[in-house]
């Protein structure tokens, strides 16, 4: 035993002499700033005066010391994405540390045990969206046995992708949760009835609404600008013709996937999420939110600069980086998506109860990209190729663009785990619904779940199934996991896995570092909607958290915030509107109608309800109605059941249910404390054209309403309606 210790200390000593441990320190000053990416001046956060944050470079074996100076008026914290470190350095406020308050200084210090491309960002609130992201590079040691000649010795550029919205990210989240389709209007992705009919897709649109789906896009948010290293277009002229360049690409966007294509030829993928992979040559790849890819490209000709094009998956915009000096060789733009083809595909994939068809392992690893039905360029390919391809199908395949998928990733060395370690199987179904923008795992948001206890040294083998219509980049803190992808012992190591709709994938890792590790969807707005879990490995005593339970409750609270929305219509015949606060499960709403005279009277209905089920189509509620008016027009005292309803002055408690019927019609059944029953059908926001919405309401009190609304801006519309109580009216519709 003693000898062993001696040997070890000897080895350690020699290690220390060869790689003299070096402390590399960075000071980061986080401060409010004003930026102008879109033509408008907006608030953002800059670190050391720049967006993105400065690139931090270390060599494997160094000790990283990063001092965060919070000069903001709000809390902050920094997370080191993909880095294996002690839990207290992981930078998740309320989970691994308390947030760093305004004016405070916090030092992160950890040994650098990896090499590769990583990145870092704020894990506090939504600061990542407004500037707090940056590249983090761990260099290989010169004599590292895994050093690859022709790759690791190339000139290298850190490239961080991101996006910019002029809206405050908190407001973006609120708009998504309130079902606003403003982003769809901005992106021209409303998929309205008139557009459907024009394109011959009427049946597809009806089926889609019959299945209670609202128009969906491949991404949720409209962005004014897309950025590479903080710029929409930029050039690096220093590269000579004939040379090869390694780009360390991180996707620091809050919610955008990017297609990468290159004007100078093929792209060679050499690493992913910080881990080397066997080089693979492709025409294009998609980089999921928070993934990193190292790619190598050529500078083929003299006097030419070649475009690296990063296109948002929804094709609403792109950013460019030109490599080399001279005239700029453009890369062809990716054409607009064909939404109705995607809608038709979704119709086929979704069952009436809102579940996706589970394809088991038939769909995994991005090999079947459902979205390809929407890509016009892929469909255009075979026709051009078909001319000289004869009837040999093989030539056709060879002519199409080669797209990277996860099955093509192979580790250069075996990545097998300790075969002795106990294995624990877990399964998570990724769930959620677009209509209320609730995102969850196993239909539970973080605020409804405790931490998942894990024994230290256990292997977790996790099966993930995406039963939702959106893709989710699932990120695990503190560990690399193996992705079971048919490469056997050479399964690639990743820390983010893109889960496409309907995919099933298996990941595994050895939980050998103690602490509370976050596991979540890296789309910022999905994370803030509750799509998170925590693995609590071992019994970790975190010196930065004096009350862990209290802190966890704060974390839960932050991912299930209340959202406020309101709408009011000022019309010639009266004033009506509604206001609502809601979170993942509860909704409290008030509707009002105020007439301009006693005959029209006024009416206030209040409801408190809970949304039930994964799709949240059912909401039982309790309510209170108050109404006053002098009988005037539309004198129905009896309802369709013959019950007499004293409309002139009513104070009523009620219970009822709201249920979303096919075609997105809200059915409401309500019983008042005097025994009166009211049944009602209502549909609002029928997308007639890109900006025109229709709606109607009928109920058993023999009341009815029809409306048309034209959306002018995010907050203003013109509305005309006919109402059985109030008659015909035209007015201004304001909404928040």
């Amino acid at each position: 035993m003693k000898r062993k210790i001696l040997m070890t200390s000897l080895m350690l000593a020699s290690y220390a002499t060869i790689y003299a441990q070096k402390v590399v320190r960075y000071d980061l000053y986080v401060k409010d700033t004003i930026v102008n990416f879109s033509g408008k001046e907006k608030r953002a956060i800059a670190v050391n005066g720049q967006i993105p944050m400065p690139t931090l470079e270390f060599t494997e074996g160094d000790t990283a010391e990063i001092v965060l100076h919070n000069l903001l008026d709000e809390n902050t914290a920094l997370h080191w994405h993909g880095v294996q470190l002690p839990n207290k350095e992981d930078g998740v406020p309320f989970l691994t540390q308390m947030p760093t308050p305004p004016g405070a200084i916090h030092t992160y210090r950890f040994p650098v045990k990896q090499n590769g491309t990583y990145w870092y960002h704020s894990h506090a609130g939504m600061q990542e969206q407004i500037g707090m992201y940056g590249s983090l590079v761990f260099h290989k040691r010169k004599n590292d046995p895994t050093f690859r000649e022709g790759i690791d010795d190339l000139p290298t550029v850190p490239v961080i992708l991101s996006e910019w919205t002029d809206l405050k990210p908190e407001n973006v989240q609120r708009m998504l949760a309130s079902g606003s389709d403003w982003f769809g209007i901005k992106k021209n992705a409303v998929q309205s009835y008139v557009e459907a009919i024009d394109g011959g897709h009427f049946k597809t649109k009806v089926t889609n609404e019959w299945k209670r789906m609202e128009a969906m896009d491949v991404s949720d948010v409209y962005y004014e600008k897309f950025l590479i290293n903080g710029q929409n277009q930029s050039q690096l002229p220093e590269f000579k013709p004939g040379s090869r360049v390694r780009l360390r690409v991180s996707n620091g966007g809050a919610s955008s996937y990017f297609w990468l294509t290159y004007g100078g030829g093929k792209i060679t993928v050499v690493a992913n999420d910080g881990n080397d992979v066997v080089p693979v040559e492709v025409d294009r790849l998609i980089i999921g939110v928070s993934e990193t890819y190292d790619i190598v490209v050529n500078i083929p000709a003299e006097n030419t600069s070649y475009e690296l094009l990063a296109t948002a998956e929804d094709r609403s915009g792109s950013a460019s980086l030109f490599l080399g000096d001279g005239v700029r060789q453009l890369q062809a733009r990716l054409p607009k998506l064909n939404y109705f083809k995607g809608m038709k595909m979704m119709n086929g994939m979704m069952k009436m109860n809102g579940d996706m068809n589970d394809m088991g392992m038939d769909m995994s690893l991005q090999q079947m990209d459902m979205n390809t039905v929407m890509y016009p360029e892929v469909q255009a390919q075979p026709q051009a190729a078909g001319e000289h391809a004869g009837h040999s199908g093989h030539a056709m395949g060879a002519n199409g663009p080669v797209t990277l998928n996860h099955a093509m990733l192979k580790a250069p060395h075996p990545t097998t785990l300790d075969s002795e370690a106990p294995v624990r199987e877990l399964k998570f179904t990724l769930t959620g619904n677009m209509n209320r923008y609730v995102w969850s795992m196993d239909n539970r948001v973080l605020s409804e779940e405790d931490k998942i206890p894990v024994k230290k040294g256990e292997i977790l083998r996790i099966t993930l199934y995406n039963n939702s219509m959106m893709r989710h980049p699932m990120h695990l803190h503190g560990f690399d996991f193996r992705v079971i992808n048919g490469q056997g012992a050479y399964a690639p190591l990743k820390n983010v896995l893109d889960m496409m709709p309907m995919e099933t994938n298996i990941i595994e890792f050895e939980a050998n570092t103690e602490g509370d590790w976050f596991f979540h969807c890296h789309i910022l707005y999905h994370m803030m909607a509750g799509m998170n879990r925590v693995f609590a490995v071992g019994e970790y005593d975190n010196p930065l958290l004096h009350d862990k339970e209290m802190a966890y409750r704060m974390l839960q609270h932050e991912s299930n915030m209340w959202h406020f929305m309101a709408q009011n219509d000022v019309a010639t015949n009266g004033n009506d509107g509604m206001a609502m606060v809601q979170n993942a499960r509860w909704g409290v709403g008030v509707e009002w109608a105020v007439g301009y005279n006693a005959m029209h009277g006024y009416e206030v209905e209040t409801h408190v309800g809970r949304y039930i089920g994964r799709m949240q189509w059912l909401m039982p509620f309790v309510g209170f109605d108050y109404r006053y008016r002098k009988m005037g027009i539309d004198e129905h005292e009896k309802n369709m059941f013959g019950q007499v309803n004293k409309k002139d002055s009513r104070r009523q408690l009620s219970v009822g249910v709201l249920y979303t019927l096919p075609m997105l019609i809200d059915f409401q059944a309500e019983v008042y404390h005097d025994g009166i029953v009211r049944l009602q059908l209502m549909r609002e926001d029928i997308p007639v054209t890109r900006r025109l919405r229709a709606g109607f309401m009928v109920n058993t009190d023999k009341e009815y309403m029809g409306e048309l609304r034209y959306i002018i801006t995010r907050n203003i519309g013109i509305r005309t309606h006919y109402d059985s109580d109030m008659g015909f009216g035209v007015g201004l519709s304001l909404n928040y």
Partner: protein
Amino acid sequence: MKSFIFWMAAGIMLLSTTYAQPKYEATETVLISGNCEMCKKAIETAGTVKHEASVDWNQETGAATLTYNPSKTNTDEILQRIALAGYDNAQYLAPDEAYASLPECCQYNREFKTNTPATHAHTPHHTSQAAATDHSTHQAATDVSQHEKEGQFQAIFNHYFNLKDALVKSDGTLAASSAARFLDALGAVKMDGLTSAEHETWMNGKESIMTVTERIAGTDDIARQRTHFASLSEQVYLLMKASGTAQPVYYQRCPMFNNSKGAHWLSLNQDIQNPYYGAQMLTCGNTVETVK
């Protein structure tokens, strides 16, 4: 004092807004490659944005006058749009795809572009592929005669593969004519040449094979053809199992077809070429069995 500065500033702002009214326009002349009247129209359309920029291109000299509002745009943006439409200029080169899709008369001499070994290699790429294809077609033809000796069904199988390829291309007309030829071949099968296993499978499946093939031949609606092709593939698979094949045949499955019930097809190629969705999901599917 402070308020004085404020009023000064306010005054200046007011003045500048009043005097900014007559729109300030910048003009610049640049060279843009192009040949003809059609090029002129394409270049000018691509460059022009209402209230922002306009382009006037001279066919004789190749010089374009860009007139634009510098507070809204710049020459870079204008020239980039023009290059993306297919026209090289001093700042930007058109993507090769964009240049290639110009009408023939517009395919100007690309003087701005420096040719490279890489781009040279790219062009013969197509030709070599075409040659390879010719070769394989040729081989397929010899194969047919070979297989005729080996087994009667081989001819049927080859017609099946032709039909499958037509569906991969989403070409309904071609699929219909392939199916018609397939039908002729089916009629020509001689019972006496069959082994007993072949005979049994043939007798069981013959009728449905012929009906389904007839239906495919009778329409050029690709959706209908594909539905029939799914049941045809099941029958041909059984035949193939009974008779064996000269070369390995891959029995492949598309899990999504027919509302995710899935459907199979047979292919000589291990690479997936999905006949149920064609280009939409060309490489969607997997091989479930290799028939030999």
